[in-house]
Every structure is written in C-alpha cells, then in structure tokens.
C-alpha cells in the first residue's frame, strides 16, 4: 500500500471529484486496479466502494485484472477501418490466440482495440506500448509481435 500512501498524501482531503485522477495514478503505479487497493482507498477517502466500482467499470481505460507485459492496441477508427483495420485486428488475434480485451496465458501480451489513436495518416495502425506501427498489412503483424518476445 506504499504507492497508495504516496498518491493520497499528494491529495489531502481527496473527495469524489478527485476519484478519476486518483484511479489513473493507481493504475499507472500498479499496472491495473487491484481490489485491495481500491477497498483501502475507499476507507481512507470516504468514497463509497460502490461508487469506485461503478466508475472503474464504466471507463474503458480502467482494468480490474492484471495486464500483460506488453499492450497491443489496434486502432479501429474510421480511417483505419476503410484501410483494412478489421483484417489487422484479426491478424493480431490469430497471432496471439486471444480476442480483443484479453491477455495471453503467459501474461506476455494484452490485446485491446481502441476507437482512435489520432494518427490517421498511418492507417491502418497499431501501437505496441508506446511504439507506433503504421501502413500495416496482415502479413506484417507476426514479425512486429516477434520483436517483443
């Protein structure tokens, strides 16, 4: 709980208004939102656990389960869609053996789709962690994923 201490110390009198920024910081520290940390946060701030749970489950970015070491984000924006986005998503699923939203069994990769990465000139595009890979075809996907094993 040390990390949680640090986060809450920075925000004395944290109230409901600070809930999302605090959750974002917890996720940055722990990689996801561990339930014990959320319960402790509820105790310390007085924000109801049900409210915390409601917010954590509403927003796409919050994860209640541990994540893989590498995050593969496939863009499903409109520009990517008309340039073959769905085929790229399928290729990633085939290569990793998981559906969007899931993590591989060995906890190596988490695969998610995002509505838009804002880099439409690279369509179709994916991100692995903070690296962008654009102008993709289904054939290029396995080789890119290899770089992270």
């Amino acid at each position, binding site marked *: 709980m040390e990390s949680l201490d640090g986060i809450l110390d920075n925000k004395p009198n944290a109230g409901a208004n600070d809930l999302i920024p605090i959750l974002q910081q917890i996720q940055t520290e722990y990689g996801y939102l561990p339930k014990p940390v959320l319960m402790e946060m509820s105790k310390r701030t007085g924000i109801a656990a049900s409210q915390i749970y409601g917010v954590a489950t509403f927003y796409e970015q919050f994860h209640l389960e541990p994540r893989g070491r590498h995050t593969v984000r496939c863009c499903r924006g409109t520009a990517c869609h008309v340039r073959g986005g769905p085929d790229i998503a399928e290729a990633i699923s085939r290569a990793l053996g998981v559906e969007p939203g899931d993590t591989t069994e060995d906890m190596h990769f988490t695969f998610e789709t995002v*509505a838009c990465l804002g880099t439409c000139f690279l369509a179709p595009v994916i991100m692995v962690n903070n690296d962008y890979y654009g102008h993709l075809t289904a054939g290029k996907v396995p080789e890119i994923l290899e770089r992270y094993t």
Partner: protein
Amino acid sequence: MSDKQIKSIDDLVAWQEALKKSAGKYRARVLICMTGCRALGAQDVAARFKERLGELNMTDDIAVVETGCIGMCAIAPVMLIEPWDYLYGHVTPDDVDEIIDQTLKNSKPVKRLTVKQDGAPVPVKSNINFYGKQKQLVLANCGRIDPRRIEDAIERGTYVAAVTAITEKTPDEVVEETIASGLRGRGGAGFPTGVKWKFARQSPGDEKYLICNADEGDPGAFMDRALLEGDPHRVLEGMIIAAYAIGATKGFIYVRAEYPIAVEHINIALDQARACRLLGEGIGGSDFNFDIEIRMGAGAFVCGEETALIASIEGSRGMPRPRPPFPAVSGYLGKPTNINNVETFANVPLILKNGAKAYSRIGTAKSKGTKIFALAGKVKNTGLVEVPMGTTLRRIVYDIGGGILDDKPFKAAQLGGPSGGCIPAEYLDYEIDYDSVQQIGAIMGSGGLIVMDEDTCMVDIARYFLEFVQAESCGKCTPCRVGTKKMLDILESICAGQATMDDLATLQRLAEDIKKASLCGLGQTAPNPVLSTVKNFRDEYVEHIEQRKCRAGVCKDLLGYEILEVCVGCGACRRVCPVDAITGEKKEVHAIDQDKCIKCGQCFAVCKFEAITR
C-alpha cells in the same frame, strides 16, 4: 523556465520585441515535426541533425526546432527549412548530410525529398497545392514553433490579445465582440459561441467554471490533437479570454488519455504561463485571477458530451443529464459552467486581436471563420487542412487532398464522425458550412473527413458506426441503449445476407424514433450514418438484401473467393495468402481451400490476370 513577469501589456510587447530581435541571430531554421511524425522516426532525424551541425560548428547560426504538426502527414517525417520554406518529406537520418550541404550551405533544395506535382518538384511550401489552397490562420503557428517553449509563442504574438482584453476591455465588451464575430462552436453542434458565453455571464454568482473539451472522441479526427501538441499557448490564451468574459476563476482542460504527447505539452505550457503571470493570480498585472487544471479522460466517447464530461470531472460515471438546466446555468458542482471545444478556443484570440469585423469577412453568411479538417481515408494527401467555411468538398479532396488514392473514382466523404453522414459525389461542388451540410444529410462535426472509394461498403460503414455507438452508449436511456442495439442487429443481418426489405423499413423507422427520443447527442445523432447511407446509397442496401451481394467486397458472409480456369499459375496469390489457403503447382490453375479462407481479399488484389472472383 523564463524569469519574466508580465505585469502589463507593455511588458508583454517589450518581451515580444526582444525575442524577435534575438531570433534574428539564426540565418536558417530547420523545423522538424515531432508530434505525429514521431511515429515514423522524426526523433532519429532530429538527433542526427543536431549531431552533425554540432560536428560542423554550425549550431550558432542554424537552429533545429522540434515543432508541432506541419500538416502534410502523408509524407511523414516532414521537415520545413526557413528562410527558403523548402518542404521535405519522408526524411531519414541518411538524408541529413545532403540537406546540410545542398540547402543549408548552398541554399538549394534537395529535389528528391520535395513534393512532386505533375511530375515536377515543388520545393517551396506555398507553391504546393496542399498548402497554397488552404487558409491557415488558426494553424499559423503549428509547425513554426517549438510548442514546449513559451518564448516561441510570445515571439509570434500569443497572449497579446488576452492581456489587452483583460486590461483594456470589460467582460461584456469581450462577449459582444465574440457574438459579433459570428464564431460558432467547432466541436460539431455549431452553437454561437458568444451567445453561449453570454448565458454563463448572466448567470448569478461568482463561482463559475470554464472547461475546454479536448476529448476529441470522433474516430478519424485529429485537429484538436495537433493544436494541443503544436500550439498549446494559443488554446490557453483563448481560455483566458473566455474565462474573463464569463467571470470564471477556475478552468479545466479535459483531454483524452490516448493523447499522451498533448498531455505532456499542455502541462509544460501551464507551468510556463504560470511562471510569468500569464496564468494564475493577477494575470498580466490586472486583478483577474484564473487558473487551469488538466484532467484526463478514461476512454469514454460519451464524455465528449458536455454534461457527461462534467459528470466525469465530478468523479462519476460519464452519464449525461437532461437539459435544461444547461451548464451555463448549472454545470460543474451545480455552478454556471461554460464548455467549448479546443478549436473554438483557438479561434478566440484572432477575434480579439483583429476585431470581429475582420474575422467575419472570412466564411459564409452564417458560418464565419475557417474550419480545420482532418483529411484521411482513401485520399492521397492525408493531413490537416484549414479552409474558409463555404469551401467545396471538391477543393478539399482534389485540389488540396490530391484526389483519390490510385486515382479511383470518388464514392463518398464521411463528415461528422459517428454523428455525421456520408456525402456522395453529386455534392462535390456544394459549399460546406454548418447549415448547408445538414441539408444533405450530414453534420459539420468536429472536422474528421474520411474519403471513401469503391472498395468501401456503405452498409458496412453504417454497421461500423453503430457498433462503435453501441459500445460507447452509456446505457442510461432506453431509446439509445436498446435502440442502437436493435439497429446494429438489423445491420449485421443485412451484412450477413439474412435480412428482408421489411427489416430495412424497420431500420429507418427505428432511426427516426431514436433521433427524437434519446437523452443526449450521442443517441440523437447515432442514427445519422444509417439515415444518410440509406438515403444516398440505397442501392447497396437493396443489393445486400435481395441479391446477397456486396459490390465493394467487404461483407465477408456475402463473398466467396474462387480461382477461375484462366489462372496461369504464377503463384502470386499463394505467396500473399496469410493463412496458406491456396495451393497449386507452378503454371497450373491454383485453388482456394474454402475452409481456410478468411476472405481478406489479398489474393484478389494481387492477381494480375483477373483470375479470381468474389
């Protein structure tokens, strides 16, 4: 961090003059886009440049500046070299020595890196059609300054309009000037900005809030991203003016978490502005206090809707609220709140600097100023395009955009994201503004403009948008939560070749009802892509239903790839198949294993003998 303290407009102008003078010491500037272009190696190019210039002792008179978006994203990494304004694309670290030699030492362009028009190199930026035919007013600083240095923004006049407004005008005067300019909200709905400010101004109380909606949720839109990453101080300046006008002392910038560079640059800008009294207590020596906090979105499209955004900042699930009361009366924490889009704020300094009259000379009768479009899809020159309101689609897509990829015919332009519509070729010469675009079944939207060709299935596009909206629906109201699911079910069955004409009629009826009955803009506009594609591309719907055919080759359930007898056995298809579904000996007719085939269409695309049907 600068130690300047701006205590009057004179301080600011003096600083600007001093900066202009010291900028004169550089005889050339190498501007490298470090935002979007980072994705294709811009950092390596910049590093190599700095390294080589250091080795050649040229760093005293040549500046290397890491800028925001230079605009022509299709040729990333992009570089602009002043004073000649040579524009280079697809630059790699290996090109650096030649650029230093040819351009920096001998003032000549490196022709192979320039844009080609009609086969000839066009080195100077303003001669390139993509740029020459735009009118970059709001984007004027993007690509010319280092967005992480407030000095660069000040040198180009940022904050002068704001400090002048708060020290020499009354808030009411600022509101009236903005109303007179005719500025309408750039987030998509196009409500008159000054009028919106007036409502907040007139609300009683002295605890008021100003929010910048930087969620930019429309897939395919990246205008706000470029502004926040490339010229953040312009946006802050607009917010300061707006806060003064309505009487707010606290502001928020709500930016989507998927934009880490924007978050970084805004944070730097906020710190720098505070450090020289351009934000915080006593801005510019006046008694006006205003500070801004940054908040990151958490991945919910619906939080681009203003009441949902407010709920999110309050720490709740992002669910919209009924209006009235409007945020101007009761918003954040129940207090009067004004929310505007990033591009709207970025327009504000222009109005206060040059006056409402000058601003309103550009645009059409009821839509003033310019609009930034994010041009993407099947167009040659993808990137940022700023044009006066009233510009035609043809000018944007062909004159500026360079036309369709592979010179295929134009099929449609999708405008307005999931709330918008698809505009067919017959409207290419239509003047686009807030009102005219509604008459042809679309909305202006935030500015995402996706170009489509014959390989885009319009039914699939409607299905795609519905799928998106269904995932993003907050679930609060039945018409949207259940209605969009029903519409999606029908569209999926059309794409699977299992629908009837009755289903199409139901789809249209549902669309009309959901428009009228939904609680917020998400549900109210979710049916738009359906209604506009059924209206403008009805044939495709009928073909899917009655003939079980997808002419664009997208809906996989309606496709069956087969190799014909004319196949010469070249093996190109076999090599490109990602699932090894094609077998065949050299010079013999090949065959596709239908069980393995994933209908990706790669074989169809690569066959030079028209031997594959679908």
